[in-house]
């Protein structure tokens, strides 16, 4: 079942190798991803794909996601988006879902 985003939430920091992720509920249909990164030209598509994959795992199709990237690798991006979504929904992470 899809998570319901209730509020705006942030996860991550502005430290090197990290990414600050802001997730906002949206009444507009679709996923809007805004990326700010020094490596946008090279890795923009990869960052976007990582975000889309995490949002799909949560079953969320309508939201705004802002990323201020400081050189985070994929699994850091995944972790920060997961944390921001859990905070925005007020729900804990579904660990049993990782067993699939």
């Amino acid at each position: 079942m899809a998570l319901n985003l209730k509020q705006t939430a942030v996860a991550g920091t502005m430290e090197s190798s990290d990414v600050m992720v802001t997730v906002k509920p949206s009444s507009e249909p679709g996923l809007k991803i805004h990326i700010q990164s020094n490596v946008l030209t090279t890795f923009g598509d990869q960052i976007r794909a990582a975000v889309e994959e995490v949002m799909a795992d949560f079953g969320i199709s309508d939201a705004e996601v802002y990323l201020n990237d400081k050189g985070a690798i994929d699994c850091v991006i995944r972790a920060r988006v997961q944390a921001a979504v859990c905070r925005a929904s007020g729900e804990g992470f579904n660990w049993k879902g990782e067993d699939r």
Partner: protein
Amino acid sequence: MGKIALKRTSLYASGASPVNLLQARFYNEDCLVYDLEDSVPVQEKDAARLLVYNLVKYQRPTGKYVIIRVNGIYSEFIDEDLEAAVRARPDAIRIPKVEHGYEVQKIAARITEIEKAAGMEVGSTELWCNIESYMGVLNAREIAESDPRVVALALGAEDFTASMKASRTKASLEIFYARNAILMACRAAGVEAIDAVFSDINDVEGLKEDVKLTRNLGFDGKTVVHPRQVDVVNAAFTPSKKEINYALRVLAAIEEGKKEHKGAVTIGGDMIDKPMELRAQTTLAQARAAGINV
């Protein structure tokens, strides 16, 4: 991970900081401890748990023994920490402030449930128990023998001295008994003994003195809190020529015994048993890790 894996140094890296976690793998520590406890602020526990899970599962460093330190047994975070930590598949989970064997058994039972749910081999997650109080020291043997998952006890000196109302000094006489009590418990249980942190990261000479005692007492390794301590501690655990020669003799005698189909072999009248074989292999592994050609 084999039983003779080196555990000379275990370096803590904060689960709150990706750069800290990612850089830690490039030092020479044998064990990398991804920390969810003391180095993570309460409001960041959820994010750190997800970060450590993703990094251990998808960016695991090669050639290192990987440990996740979870929050305390009685903390509000322990259940979810275990859900994440077990599924990340580290070599071991490090439990802080253990005081009784039944606490370990409770954690081990929960880990078994998670391993089953995740389709993992039951028993594949090892346990390190941090002994950080007078009660933990008094019950060290019970803790070391409480569950087959337990492979190491580690002394936490700061909390231990606080529990004793003692002062923490560089001479460390206040932890001398605790060090020996933990060592004896570990030897009785056949698990590894890890010594406490030397806290002053700027005092290299002090660290050298401290780790000399660590090794002379018989510890298998030491926890370190800063990368600059890693090489100093590793060097202290480099075996002497005499130790290397003895290890080679032990292994040669075992080989000879196998060829001659002997049930038991001896060196100078001393029977060679399995722990001696493991110790000899560890000595040679330590020597090779230090660049000695054996």
